[in-house]
């Protein structure tokens, strides 16, 4: 079987090969820009990983519901940003998200599912809005969006994967320490956003 899969792979990639693009502002640059955008800021990264960590602590169904809710609501926030609708205190909201989610992981807080969803969704709006207003001109919207959502989702999945250490006693402690670190960074980001 593997003897046939490899040539088929090579053939597919050859058939689908595109022209070499020397200019970085070409439409095809949208995918990599989108992929890079969510990981370009530590505040975004920490908050998104913290969503996965918290989901893992909360267990089923939060372990997958939180990472599902975040990208959808974040896209809604990005839509608002794209349409030019103002949202006050975006930077403060993003910093507060890292702080609040870090505190939740640190304290292993287990609220009702609806509360956790509303909280994650609320902060997702700020992250999305920031991304929506910062979208670069002259890129392919479709490819940018695909890269953007894939990167965000991957950060959540990474958080969930790390959070799976929660099943071991030492892992629980490590996870709470990680939450504390996220919260500490959140404090720093909040101080920077306010100052």
């Amino acid at each position: 079987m593997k003897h046939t899969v490899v040539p088929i792979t090579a053939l597919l990639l050859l058939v689908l090969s595109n022209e070499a693009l020397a200019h970085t502002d070409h439409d095809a640059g949208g995918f990599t820009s989108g992929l890079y955008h969510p990981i370009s800021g530590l505040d975004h990264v920490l908050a998104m990983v913290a969503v996965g960590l918290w989901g893992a602590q909360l267990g089923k169904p939060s372990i997958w519901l939180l990472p599902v809710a975040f990208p959808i609501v974040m896209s809604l926030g990005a839509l608002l940003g794209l349409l030019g609708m103002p949202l006050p205190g975006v930077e403060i909201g993003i910093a507060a998200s890292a702080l609040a989610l870090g505190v939740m992981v640190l304290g292993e807080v287990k609220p009702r599912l609806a509360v956790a969803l509303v909280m994650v969704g609320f902060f997702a709006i700020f992250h999305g809005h920031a991304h929506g207003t910062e979208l670069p001109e002259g890129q392919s919207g479709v490819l940018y969006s695909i890269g953007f959502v894939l990167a965000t989702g991957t950060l959540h999945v990474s958080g969930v994967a790390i959070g799976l250490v929660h099943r071991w006693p030492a892992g629980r402690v490590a996870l709470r320490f990680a939450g504390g670190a996220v919260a500490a960074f959140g404090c720093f980001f909040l101080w920077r956003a306010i100052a």
Partner: protein
Amino acid sequence: MMPRARHLAGATFLIVLMWPSVALAHLMSTGFGPFYDGMAHLFVTPVDLMAVLAVGMLAGLRGAKPGRWALFGITTSWLIGGTVGLCVEADATPLVIGAAAGPFVVGLAVALDLRLPLAATTSIAALVGAGFGLLNGLSLRATGADSLPLLGITAAVFVCVTLIAAATVRVTRDRDWRRIAVRVAGSWITAISLLMIGWMLKTGV
């Protein structure tokens, strides 16, 4: 299939999906003729591919029977919509946002794992197929193409929905987490579609 070969096939599929390419109003040239140009068109048009993915997953989540009905629903309506698009003179621009709304709605239904009746699943598949087919037909007409590329696109849609729906039925049968993975994929399609709609509204398509 051997596990390694299966992983390789999965990685290939992912690479093909993520392969960065420009959204082309004109068909890409494979060198094999218009039918194969049409087949390739689906794989280099992310919006169309997302719609096909979403419909396949939605139908597959409901089981084999809805999968079969959705398969024939989307393929037939794609062909009919495309034929209409080839025959009429119209501006395709307003349809583009509607087309992005298709994967949004279907992706949301996948994410929520909505227990839709057979008629609803088939109707959604048919609606999505008709919309995208019409858009393809209008675009093909604008480029002066004949019906062969449309047949190629429809054949590719048929193959893709068959594979995706069948794979979804198979992988979600035993394991809960695999069903969750499909639902997560649905949420990602929803998020991407929403962003695309925003982008289209911002740029005026």
